[in-house]
């Protein structure tokens, strides 16, 4: 039985959010959330979400999991990301009328899109900034963003995140995609004449568009770096990470150790980062991950393939435990002081709709 249960303390939105905010603040100041504290806080948050999020409570009941029946964060039921698409059963701990912001997952007009509702984005924003600091990621110099700014794409969590980078981390910001949608390279070429290091941030796809639009390479000043995120879903592009890094090198003069990959999703409030090629993604100490072997539905051994499940304490107002359809490998056994990490393989191809022959799309790929 946990302390709050022993003392019959009712966990309120204010109490749990303030506790988590404080833990996140401490983590960014060099005091990461260690296992025991994480476990206690995760169980408190589960108790709160089980009580206040009725759609999630029903799901937990279907799994016979209640706050009374579990003692470890491992056992907190994880909702599949597709559950966020069920509009009739919003995954929130608050009435929908109190929503400040809703982010939508990407998708076409015919596809249903997942919705992540926020009562407030303050904790989400704190998580973005604090993770960057806790993970000792590089200084964000004069920054160039290759995605639409938040006011142009208010339903995109990625645009919102980049907006937070722009407002709170970057020395200077330039959004390279104006309303017209085409990439404006003038400001970037003018800036590098001053020989000051710059930062480029965008989706992997937006970088490909950037490279396509360049008439000649733009070699960035020393100390510059780039952050790319996302895959090529719904496009004809199929590029390996090393091929993408080669393009960074050819077009911008950046080596792999100056390229950061960000991994997150609309359904989360925290991010994971890797730097260079073949490196593990690391998350802040208020997150945990499991890699589940879907065949056995148990933890995959380190180095074996499975589906990524993420536990994110910053997801206070929805669901902390999210089951993704991304393939990953668990890093070696994590030590107490180490941040959670995994080797990302990518989107599981079976996450796409299938029918006759879609499963064996290899007739020509010999």
């Amino acid at each position, binding site marked *: 039985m946990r302390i709050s249960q022993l003392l019959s303390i009712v966990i309120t939105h204010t109490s749990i959010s303030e506790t988590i905010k404080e833990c996140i603040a401490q983590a960014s100041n060099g005091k990461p959330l260690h296992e025991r504290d994480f476990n206690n806080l995760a169980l408190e948050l589960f108790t709160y979400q089980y009580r206040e999020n009725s759609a999630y409570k029903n*799901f937990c009941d279907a799994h016979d999991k209640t706050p009374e029946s579990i003692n470890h964060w491992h056992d907190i039921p994880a909702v599949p990301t597709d559950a966020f698409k069920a509009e*009739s*059963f919003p995954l929130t701990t608050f009435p929908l009328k109190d929503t400040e912001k809703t982010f939508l997952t990407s998708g076409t007009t015919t596809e249903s899109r997942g919705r992540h509702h926020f009562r407030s984005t303050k904790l989400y924003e704190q998580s973005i900034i604090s993770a960057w600091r806790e993970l000792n990621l590089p200084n964000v110099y004069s920054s160039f963003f290759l995605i639409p700014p938040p006011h142009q794409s208010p339903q995109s969590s990625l645009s919102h995140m980049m907006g937070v980078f722009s407002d709170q981390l970057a020395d200077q910001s330039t959004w390279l995609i104006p309303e017209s949608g085409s990439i404006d390279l003038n400001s970037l070429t003018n800036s590098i004449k001053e020989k000051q290091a710059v930062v480029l941030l965008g989706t992997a796809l937006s970088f490909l568009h950037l490279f396509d639009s360049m008439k000649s390479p733009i070699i960035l000043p020393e100390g510059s770096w780039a952050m790319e995120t996302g895959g090529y879903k719904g496009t004809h592009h199929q590029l390996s990470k090393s091929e993408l890094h080669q393009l960074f090198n050819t077009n911008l003069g950046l080596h792999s150790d100056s390229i950061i990959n960000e991994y997150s999703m609309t359904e989360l409030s925290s991010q994971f980062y890797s730097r260079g090629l073949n490196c593990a993604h690391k998350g802040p100490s208020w997150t945990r991950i499991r890699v*589940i072997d*879907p065949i056995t539905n148990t933890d995959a051994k380190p180095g074996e393939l499975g589906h990524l499940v993420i536990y994110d304490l910053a997801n206070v107002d929805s669901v902390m435990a999210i089951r993704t*359809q991304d393939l990953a490998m668990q890093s070696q056994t994590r030590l107490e002081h180490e941040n959670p990490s995994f080797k990302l393989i990518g989107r599981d191809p079976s996450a796409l709709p299938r*029918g*006759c022959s879609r499963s064996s*799309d290899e*007739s020509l790929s010999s």
Partner: protein
Amino acid sequence: MTPTSERIQHLFEACSHQEVQQWTGSITVDDLHAWLRQELGSERALDQFLPHGPLKSKAIAPQCILHIVSGNTPHAAFQSIIRGLIIGSHNIVKIPSAGLDAFTDALRHFPKPLNDLIEIHSALEDEDWLRADVVIAIGSDKTIAAIQQQIRPHQHFIAHGHKVSIAIVYDDFETAARRAARDVSRFNQRGCLSIHAIYIQGDSMRFAELLAAEMEEFSNTNPPDPTSVSEAGAIRNLRETTRFCASNDTSVHLWESKDTLSWTVIHQSDPALQLSCLNRCVFVKPLPPELDSKILGAESAHLSTIAIHPFDEAKATLLENLPAHRICSLGESQKPSLFWHHDGIAPIASLVKWKDLG
């Protein structure tokens, strides 16, 4: 070219072997003669000029057919090669890189004159493409689009792209559930003729429960192939998403094999046709008063077969406005007749050209 009757005799011998027959079904010499008569007007149409109105005409088989087959089931590969062999064409078969053992192994039962007409390739050279007069492709829409780009103006292209099948049950739930379990489970749903959704007139929840029991029974005697991590992930994701919906909506219900991924039955009231993630996962839905393409949604454009129970020609005819090319009896969806029009295409007539005299 050998006379048609010789090829028919050789094909009969090949298809008499159990290893071949399990995919082709039982085929007699008379069946093969009748098939040619139906498709070309006469079983002698490939051998001699025959009256054709004021003219005389002879069917000309393509010199070479390129068959690009998928790895989903060997079924389609056998069907395609039999069509090419009966008309005496040379056949290049491009199999998936992972192989198609059930097909290639069984070719040893084909008499030499037929085997001489078959080349198996796991990769294609430019020369192979150039030799083909006809290209038949079975695969995803993406694969078909990629192949289409390789087709030269003189080549005839026959595409069998993404397809999906459904069932409708009107009555006699016990028999229907047993037959449906077979149609859903065979080939682990990888074929175009595999059932993804079953529409029920009457108590659909009761049918789903009966189907779940039959899926378990079928699975006990015919265990599914092992699943890959990716396939297992898709089943887990479907089950968990359904569990979430079911826990919040009483019209949704999930039945699943215990401790295994052998089978999954999902009841939901939304009539829109949703693709299964395959590997014996099937949706059961109430039959709406009107079942049309609009209600079925975008996937209806890819309908191959509608299997109904009890089969009744009058009922089947009522469904003829749906885009499916085949309406058959439930339990038979995976066993099309030799005579069937594959995706609406006459399988032999579509391969030949004609030479006229007079």
